[in-house]
């Protein structure tokens, strides 16, 4: 684990970070470093310059606005989002942050880093999709917003361009009769998801599902929204346990990876289990509220 030589700068401002990123060939942003640094140490990634944004306090924290508007700074660590006082109405954040990797990774890793890295088995991408979030991307001269559904391009590739820094994740969340949840099955060695289901739903006064989104991690080569399942569930009350499990076992978008840690059939079965439990929990939360 001996990296090749690289330069290192602890950025003093977002402006400096994006300028360096724009101007330096082979520069990379260093956030929590929980994925990047192991790759650098193994020489799988040999950046010429690491721009550390760890000292940029303006990128840390949760802020809430009108109408369920919620902004999370990109450098907010996973652990900081567990039981966060401003996120009590959105338990999905605690659900997900709690089960990311291990304590060390949760202490250092960040939500912005995780989304930028776009690992299909990471947890935040599924949550981001389910909550229909939006990220703010800044380059030296420009700012742009990208919606969750447009954010994931391919395996390990997000919409963040090589000259851009992800600074903020934003959500507009329902608060009335809304519920969300995240449940995953872990790959036991890495702690990444073999199958995870992030569910966000809203029920009407008759406890019928008015709107539901499910983001899925770990199963396909990319995180995805299970739209076909949403269509089947919208408009009805929560199906019986058996019926729900059957529905969750047939997610049309499901095109599972196969590897050492799980074949396609097994990932499908895990998704069925995680999805039905996650939907049930989100529904209970929505109807209890």
């Amino acid at each position: 684990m001996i990296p090749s030589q690289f330069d290192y700068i602890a950025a003093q401002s977002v402006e400096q970070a994006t300028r360096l990123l724009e101007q330096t060939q082979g520069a990379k942003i260093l956030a929590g470093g929980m994925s990047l640094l192991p790759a650098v140490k193994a020489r799988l990634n040999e950046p010429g310059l690491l721009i550390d944004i760890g000292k940029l306090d303006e990128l840390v924290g949760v802020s809430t606005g009108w109408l369920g508007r919620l902004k999370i700074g990109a450098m907010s660590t996973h652990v900081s989002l567990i039981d966060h006082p401003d996120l009590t109405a959105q338990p999905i954040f605690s659900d997900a942050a709690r089960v990311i990797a291990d304590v060390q990774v949760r202490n250092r890793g960040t939500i912005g880093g995780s989304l930028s890295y776009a690992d299909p088995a990471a947890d935040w991408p599924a949550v981001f999709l389910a909550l229909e979030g939006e990220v703010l991307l800044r380059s030296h001269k420009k700012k742009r917003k990208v919606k969750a559904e447009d954010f994931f391009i391919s395996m390990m590739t997000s919409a963040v361009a090589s000259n851009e820094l992800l600074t903020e994740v934003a959500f507009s969340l329902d608060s009335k009769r809304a519920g969300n949840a995240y449940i995953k099955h872990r790959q036991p060695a890495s702690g990444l998801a073999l199958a995870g289901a992030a569910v966000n739903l809203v029920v009407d006064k008759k406890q019928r599902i008015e709107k539901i989104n499910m983001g899925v991690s770990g199963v396909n080569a990319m995180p995805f929204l299970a739209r076909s399942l949403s269509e089947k569930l919208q408009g009805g009350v929560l199906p019986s346990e058996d019926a729900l499990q059957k529905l969750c076992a047939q997610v049309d978008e499901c095109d599972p990876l196969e590897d050492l840690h799980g074949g396609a059939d097994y990932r499908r079965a895990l998704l069925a289990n995680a999805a039905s439990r996650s939907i049930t929990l989100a529904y209970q939360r929505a109807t209890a509220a």
Partner: protein
Amino acid sequence: MSEAGKAKMGQPMNRLEDPKLVTGNGCYVDDIKRDGMLHLDFLRSPYAHADILSIDTDAALALPGVVAIYTGADLADKLGPVPSFSVPGNFFNTPDMHMLALDKVRFVGEMVVAVVASDRYIARDARELIKVNYKPLPAVTDIEKALLDDAPLVHESMGSNRAFMIPIGDAEGAAKALEGADVVVKERLINQRVIPNPMETRGVVAEYSPWDNELTAWISTQAPQNLRRDFAKFLDHPDAKLRVIAPDVGGGFGPKGAVYPDELMTVYVARELARPVKWIEERQESMMATTHARGQVYDVEMGVNRDGSIQGLRIHMLAHMGAHYGANTPVTAMVTAACITGAYKIPHAVLNAESVFTHTTCIDAYRGFGRTESSYLIERMVNRLAQEIDMDPVELRHKNFIQPDEFPYITPMNNTYDDGHYEVSMSRALEMADYDALREQQRVFRAKGRYVGIGVSSHVWRASFRMPDTHGTDNWCIGGWEKSTVTVSDNGGVTVTIGTCSMGQGIATATAQVVADVLSIDTDNIKIVEKDTFAAPFGNGSMGSRSMVTGGSATLLAAKKARAKILRLAAHLLDSVDDELELKDGCVLVVGQPEKSVSLFDIARLSLRGQEEQPLNEEPTIEESAVYEIPKFAPEFATHTAAWGTHLCLVEVQPATGKIDILRYIAVDDVGRAINPKICAGQIHGGVAQGLGQALMEEAVYDDDGQLLTSSFLDYCTPKATDMPWLEVDFTETPNPTNALGVRGVGESGTCGASPVLVNAVVDALSPLGVTHIDMPLKPEKVWKAIQQAQGDVQEASRHSQKTPRDSQQAQPRPQQEQHA
């Protein structure tokens, strides 16, 4: 804080080693820094099998800071083959392994080029600049494919990938016994290949002083004296000028018991360049090139009568060797064979051991080597028989245990057990579990459709052994003895030098407890010196749960000799006789006359006076040595002592995901007398963690090209604290009659018990579905598939039975079963 006077042995004292280690103030190899130290890095083969056509090191040599580069060709004339188990003319003879590959590589991770540079980063950069032109060749990593006629050969000169084939036991008797048995169960069991992964990887700092020709190596090892011998022989260096020091060692577990080519290379380079050299193994290197373990496949036939009496056992074993022999590679297979009958009276048994070379790193010792494998097989099979004849597995064990009055017991594999009281530990485990109530609870759960299972294993395992003399080779040198020296200084402090090797077990604490009791002093006044070949007595290091049995017993004897001398001197000072005296709180007192006493301090001073002032013509100094050797029953048998235990585990399997919840885990081990119950419990915890790791999640996986797919902790799954159940640990301390301490060994009990008990519990949980066996590791996916398969079978069977009720009995899923009337 003096607690002198209170017996230390048997107390759960905190470990004397811990304050330093747990505060991060230990000194491991990588903490050692010497002036002018160079750094070594190895370019290793990316191919499992390839010809080396050419090596170009020019660009690397030109890099500023690079001091030297070595290839196999550079060393071929200077250095012989790497020490291994293989010896010319010996039964286990195999082709040599060179320190750096010469013309061919035979596993991913084999060393090809060594780079020496002024710092570790430059060494690593230089490595990138070396160009090796390989011609990749077909490889074989699967043990059965390796035996096919058209398999690529690991060593052409051998003509086959078979390393050796030995039948052990009584083939004819076993065949007859199986013929006569009411039921014969056939099963194929796989003990998968695992990676031991000590927390501290291997590493060496070597330093050479040309002025006095002294060569010093600080190395993370379990056996400094063995390495001294190997270094001296390999480098043709005067033995007396070779100092091997094991600093703090972050876990050994077997792989650090022998010498490796990278370690030899580090010492060689230090002498060549007359500069200190450091090499620290990276985790990925460790996973690829440090020895792996287990890797055995068995076809088993076991016969039992309906009354539960086991009749016979026949096994064909395929054992992975890897691409070469390391120092102990074939030993695991041989020990597995010797121990295969476990705690049971099996009248006739035979094991045909066939060992196989593959394009993979060597197999070698790992916690419980041979005993963990044999325990897994026999404990799994006993449960399998119980399931077959519908008898409680506990009852089947009761019926077949070797009984206390039958020791010393010679097994059909010509293995001897000195002593055994298996019922004692099993009863305690059953009592802790409230076994009958637990079975009742299981019935209730089952009625609700829950998959709850109870596993039992009653492993017996030999500790502290050596191979019989006739079996040994030049390089197999683990004696059944240890030496210890106890020295009382002029201030009454006590130094104990021992030949075993702490790698985190707490040997210093347990040794100090023994000495503290014999000399009636506090452990604060005792220093244990070990792991330095210039300072400690010759010894065999620590492996195979031998340290307390041999080293502890030697220390007891030496301390008693020192005590005797102290009393003789005290008798002179007090004008009394030895048997009127007692040692207490650092003083010698005359019994019944407490006012007549003399301190250890005064006695020590007396001992250092000149010869003419010594009473009774004693030699000056109190420095007493003793050797303890495990008694041999007969010259042809290996010497060792036996330990045993019963583990019991309650699991629930989640059918939707195949996940296993361990609800209770009870470990009752008989380690003989527990010198320090806390340390013993810690050993059980660690062993169970490694055993459960193998049972649940660990597996070294190679693809068909010989690439190791599990070469980092992202893919190789080692159990973490959060994966561990709560362990209910207890000991039944039946004193071992063969040594004065009464100890049996503890380090490997956990691995021996844990893997079979977990699999037994899971199979028991799924037995209503007709599941009879699942191979380790019981990854959720594998368990889920077994459930899916079994549920399919059951549905199929019930459909079938609705049509033709008469066939329903035959449709019960009982695969691979033969019955004899």
